[in-house]
């Protein structure tokens, strides 16, 4: 067993009656990493997290957290993880400090230690001002922070957050994001989300899940590179459409092009290069040679959005092509 691995998942699958939620996935998460579990709704992210948090048993496969088996050494595992479920359920009738204190005690912290930790996490999550308020009366952003404070209160090695930023406004998302980033070196964090830019900003590594399987697992940068080969460029030139079409079809570097009329005499062209070449110098030289006015020349930087769409919908892509 790998000493440095916080989570080791081997061939994990989970079947509900008549439906496979997770179909034989394997992955490892090293200590100190922030890993994003990404996928559309119903991809099996929450199920995977629930299994990791010992709430649901796996149908087959093994899961180790910090070297302990989630099924046979469930209590040991639960002591080491801080888990915030989807939708962040809380006891709405309790007060913030009271709730965190209760959770700290429940997680086995002594009286003094729990008081210390509650103060620390309340400060960390910006809850000091609302410590006496009833949770049910707090705004969603504060409730989310209470949920995170609960996950952190026993200073766990592994923090599992299921959709931590769902339903928050942009400002609150930024706060939560900073909070998560701040946990990195000391804690291992596994978060799930279906919002890409978020994962891109927070995670060292991303696992893309679709239909119960992991389709890609890499750093955001590498995933970029994966699709960067097909970089398309957008050109806007003042030239006759026919001349442009001629020109593009003669260029060997271009695999596919599309010309459409833009305002005035400008034509908007989308060019797809062969073998991932950078077409921009070629286009510039051509414009110069023909004396065409060039007003736009951009390379479509593939965002993770594209990677996401590409890997999460393989079936549809094949059907279309």
């Amino acid at each position, binding site marked *: 067993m790998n000493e440095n691995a916080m989570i080791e998942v081997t061939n994990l699958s989970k079947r509900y009656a008549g439906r496979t939620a997770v179909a034989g996935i394997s992955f490892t998460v090293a200590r100190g990493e922030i890993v994003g579990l990404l996928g559309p709704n119903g991809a099996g992210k929450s199920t995977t997290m629930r299994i990791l*948090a010992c709430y649901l*048993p796996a149908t087959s496969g093994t899961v180790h957290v910090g070297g302990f088996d989630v099924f046979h050494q469930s209590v040991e595992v639960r002591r080491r993880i801080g888990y915030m479920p989807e939708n962040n359920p809380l006891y709405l009738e309790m007060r913030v400090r009271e709730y965190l204190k209760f959770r700290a005690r429940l997680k086995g912290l002594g009286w003094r230690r729990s008081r210390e930790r509650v103060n620390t996490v309340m400060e960390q999550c910006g809850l000091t001002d609302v410590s006496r308020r009833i949770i049910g009366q707090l705004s969603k952003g504060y409730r989310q922070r209470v949920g995170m404070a609960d996950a952190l209160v026993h200073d766990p090695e592994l923090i599992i957050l299921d959709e931590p930023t769902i339903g928050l406004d942009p400002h609150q998302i930024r706060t939560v994001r900073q909070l998560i980033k701040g946990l990195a070196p000391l804690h291992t964090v596994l978060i799930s989300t279906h919002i890409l830019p978020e994962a891109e900003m927070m995670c060292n590594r991303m696992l893309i899940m679709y239909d119960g399987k992991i389709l890609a697992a890499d750093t955001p940068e590498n995933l970029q590179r994966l699709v960067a080969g097909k970089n398309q460029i957008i050109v806007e030139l003042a030239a006759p459409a026919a001349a442009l079409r001629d020109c593009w079809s003669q260029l060997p570097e271009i695999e596919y092009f599309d010309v459409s009329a833009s305002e005035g005499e400008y034509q908007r062209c989308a060019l797809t290069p062969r073998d991932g070449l950078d077409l921009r110098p070629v286009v510039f030289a051509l414009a110069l040679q023909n004396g065409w006015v060039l007003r736009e020349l951009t390379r479509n930087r593939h965002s993770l959005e594209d990677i996401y769409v590409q890997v999460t919908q393989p079936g549809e892509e094949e059907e279309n092509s």
Partner: protein
Amino acid sequence: MRIFLTLTRRELAAFFVSVSGYVIIAAVTLLIGWSFVVVMTNLGSDPSPMPVTEMFYGTYFFWLIVLLATPIITMRLFALEKFSGTFETLMTAPVGDLQVVAAKFTAAAVFYLIMWLPLLACLFVVRHFTDQPATLDAGTIGGMYLGVFLVGCLFLSLGCFASALSRSQMAAAMISFVLGVSLFSLGFLAQAITAPTQWKTKLLSYFGLFDQMNDFAQGVVDTRTVIFYVSLTLFFLFLTLRVVESRRWK
């Protein structure tokens, strides 16, 4: 043990931070007061050799309270947590299933005992105005409260079981009410059917909760009855535990 106490404290506090706890206590106090008035009126018109506590059970108010209040006390325990999702946060904390079940049941039992306190006040009123300490000796009251407690525990464990089965509080209350009424009426079944075989009647008579309670009210603590209640309570708590655990083998 620490976790058990922490959980019990929270469960108990949950009764008192919501309106429902006070509504139950108010309703039960009203019913107790009512039955007290009925008992006193009867006592005033014709003297009776029975202890006051036993007369109290003669009014049926007691069973009404037990049958109605216990489902309402217990319906929240598991169903609400499952419904709101807090069950997931609870069970992913390092707590044992047994601790959770025991804590929830204990909290319900403590609340149930608190709910019966007004009855004690009624009995003190009787003592104050009759000047007859013999009518209310410690044995009778002790026996009565033990009976109240044991019967309550049985019905509360039924309620725990029903609550663990369901995600809806309403459904939980209904299931436990139906189970409770069925169990209660088993005793009457023994009287109603003319014994086809000896052992069947005998078996049914063990479920005669009504008669057993009369014994308790007279201050008679029958070991058989105590064992009957305790074992049945434990049985339903065991079933509750299995339901809570079932998550792991589903």
